[in-house]
């Protein structure tokens, strides 16, 4: 399926079902990341229960250096 992640069109296997699986697919499961799905910010505990489907718009952000 095709997802829009961080403004880019990205193809991921259809087996990726949840946000948790999506993060694992990109090897981000141990990183501090925050996910926004279709403009809805997800709490970390909801990653496993939230499904991703074709065409979803996803933002994956993290903390970087700043003042």
């Amino acid at each position, binding site marked *: 399926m095709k997802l829009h992640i961080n403004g880019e069109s990205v193809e991921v296997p259809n087996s990726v079902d949840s946000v948790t699986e999506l993060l694992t697919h*990109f090897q*981000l499961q141990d990183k501090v990341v925050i996910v*926004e799905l279709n403009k809805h910010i997800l709490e970390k505990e909801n990653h496993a229960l939230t499904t991703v489907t074709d065409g979803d718009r996803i933002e994956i952000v993290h903390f970087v250096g700043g003042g």
Partner: protein
Amino acid sequence: MLNIGPYSFHSRLMLGTGKYPDFDIQKQAVDVSETEILTFSVRRMNIFEPSQPNFLEKIEVEKYKLLPNTAGASTAEEAVRIAKLAKASGLCDMIKVEVIGDPKTLLPDPVETLKATEELLAEGFIVLPYTSDDVLLAKRLQDLGVHAIMPGASPIGSGQGIINPLNLSFIIEQSTVPVIVDAGIGTPSDAAIAMEMGADGVLLNTAVSGAKDPVKMAQAMKLAIEAGRLGYEAGRIPKKRYATASSPMEGLSTV
């Protein structure tokens, strides 16, 4: 002790985490600064580079209170979204509201800052707005119920020090919440002056990260802030126009 919302801090230095030469130097600088509050920004991750290092992985996160900023926002709406993203990390509930109104001066947009602050307070955040040295705006922010006010000493990253000490002193005098001087600090003496004026703390980044020796500068800033605070608590002597001898005039031995 510096009290911000429900939190208490021994250190009055807040340190930014941007633009260090490398993570090792940054880690050493953070350690010697003895800061308890680190600021961060929220940005898109490069999902195709999972091994990219992150400074959060280099430190014991639980030792610090994270103060994410809303840098990158130019409207209240954008700032609120960034704040909510930061909070969804589960690592923090403090937010530095930073709504930049002009790319050249990086001065904060007062109207959008006020709007974002009001909304984030209603959402239950511990809110520390970055603001200009406008005295009435500081008062309006305080009236909203902010947990600290962060007036800039001078434009972000400029290292010009405190360019409007009169306004800053008015803000400090009227404030019933902590005043953290944020942005524009260049030297340890700038930080010391802010503290001598009665500021409750100083937030700086470039003055340390951009110094020739960031670790040494981090230590210098720590000491300057401590010295400035002690000086403020001790109470300075009044300035006088003419000299007053420190040595007694009596008992002078003459031939």
